[in-house]
């Protein structure tokens, strides 16, 4: 998979920060909108294949 490149750096970890296995869940994602994707192009076909076979991205990568 491709990735974007950011310019500005990450902040330093504040003193005393703690999280279970270094991770802290804070909130759920905001509600989403239902929309229709156009069934066109190679990337849609890959999406449809995953959806029909109930596969995830990483299963698809293999």
């Amino acid at each position, binding site marked *: 998979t*491709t*990735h*974007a490149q950011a310019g500005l750096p990450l*902040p330093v*970890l504040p003193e005393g920060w703690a999280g279970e296995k270094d*991770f*802290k869940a*804070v909130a759920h*994602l905001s509600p*989403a909108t239902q929309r229709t994707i156009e069934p066109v192009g190679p990337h849609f076909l890959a999406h449809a294949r995953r959806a029909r076979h109930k596969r995830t991205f990483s299963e698809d990568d293999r």
Partner: protein
Amino acid sequence: MAAEGASAGGPAPDERHAIGISFGNSNSSIAVTMADDKVEVIANEDGDRQIPSILSYVDGEEYNGQQARQQLIRNSKNTVACFRDFLGQDFKSIDPTHCHASAHPQAHNDTVAFTIKDKAGDEESTVTISEIATRQFRRLKQSASHFTGKDVNSAVITIPTNFSEKQNEALTKAAKDAGIETLQLIREPVAALLAYDARPETKVSDKNVVVADLGGTRSDVAVIASRGGMYTILATAHDYEFAGVHLDKVLQDHFAKEFIKWNSIDPRENARSLAKLKLESEATKKALSIGTNANFSVESLAEGIDFTSTINRLRYETIARKVLDGFNRLVEGVVKKAGLDVLDIDEVILSGGTSHTPKIASNFGSIFPETTKIFAPSTSATAINPSELQVRGAALQASLIQEYESEDIEQSTHPAVTTVKHLTNAIGVLAISDDSHKGIFTPIVSAETAVPARRSIHIPVPKEGGDVLIKIVEGGSHIKVTKPESAPTTNGKKESDDSEDSDEDSDEEPEEQREKVWKVGNVLAEAAVKGTKKGGQVEVMINVAVDLAVTVTAREVGEKGGVRGNLSAP
């Protein structure tokens, strides 16, 4: 609603010879994807790649394309033009405006028909719109089969974004009756975008695209969220008052008035003279897209008088201003309708024949910021011919799906697969800038991305390395407007050095600056990546599942381990 699936009973996948078809009210085109994945737009027997969607009958013989178009002068009653939009409609719902100078549509049961002499002799027949469209498809099939040397029997066909289910069905039936199985109907602006995205130099990215399809009798604009190569239409607009024929009309009136001045005869009052005036005005208009001067020349324009004149581009752009401004308003309106700002638009694709007009592209260039790419022949040397975009996209889609069973195509285009959740906000990570300790939103997944989705970013650690905080947040963008305090006389904003222009400009208010800024929203999660090296980078990956559960992973680039955490579905 998205697209019509394949009709049952078509040829089996291994017997298919599929092409792409774009079928407009003004022109049709056909294209095929060759073995090397290159698309070839096919010329018909007359050598035309833009084939006028016109049929004409003389002594029982059928003419199509340019040859039929020439018949508009002498044989307009038996010439059927501008009919695509009538498919699947009843007479009350159609707009027959553009058929004044050709066979008139009439009510026929619950559909539309034309009364024409299409056989040898004087007998008239009533030919339904469905049959007319079938005849047009037969001609296209014939030209494509001739080119490929195979019996072309299936196609991906482009449709406007506002075609109804009934229109889709009528189109599919008309094609079927001509021996063409419809593999899929795809929307015109999406086909145009696919044609650009299929270029090897295009990188898959997240971008907002405006497709302005400016045709002969209608202009259609769409705003498309393109996310990882998947397309979602956010808004559309349709206009029937500002299109190619309205630019023709400007030139018709211009030259008619000039003719009146010399001859005191109005060529618009005689049907045959008007037809000649129209055809030549369109030719002059097209010439003005390439040259800065164009001729207008008609033999025996009216009452046996020949007429020759010229016009330059600047004059044309001045008299056509009202129509040209109409295109601007249409585009600005649909961006707003999508809930976006011009600063949110990354690309503008000019599609349709009228998009060859240089002034339209330069007007769009001034509506959008400099960072927006405008794809038009006059602004980009690598632009694809706007008249070929839709058919190229259709041919690409045809080659992608022609080996699938019809049921598979139907299943994949089913709403169960195409209707999905789209993110309301962007998801990103906070970074810091040198001069402030406030977090700066760095987007990873854009708003309007369909789920499931996976995106990642590489982000540097502080100079010294060490333990870093990964703060995952939602973000929204808004437009910040800054008014300059005073009015400096040297206003560097204006690009053009045109002296006439800058005289006017000096009186104007200094322009306000508009910029897109991120607003940090909900914090979703925090994570720590410890002991990073000096000059290192962290890869942050966000995976959003169908149910909106989120998986965050972060690790130093090139290192093992890292952290991984989950946010359950809301």
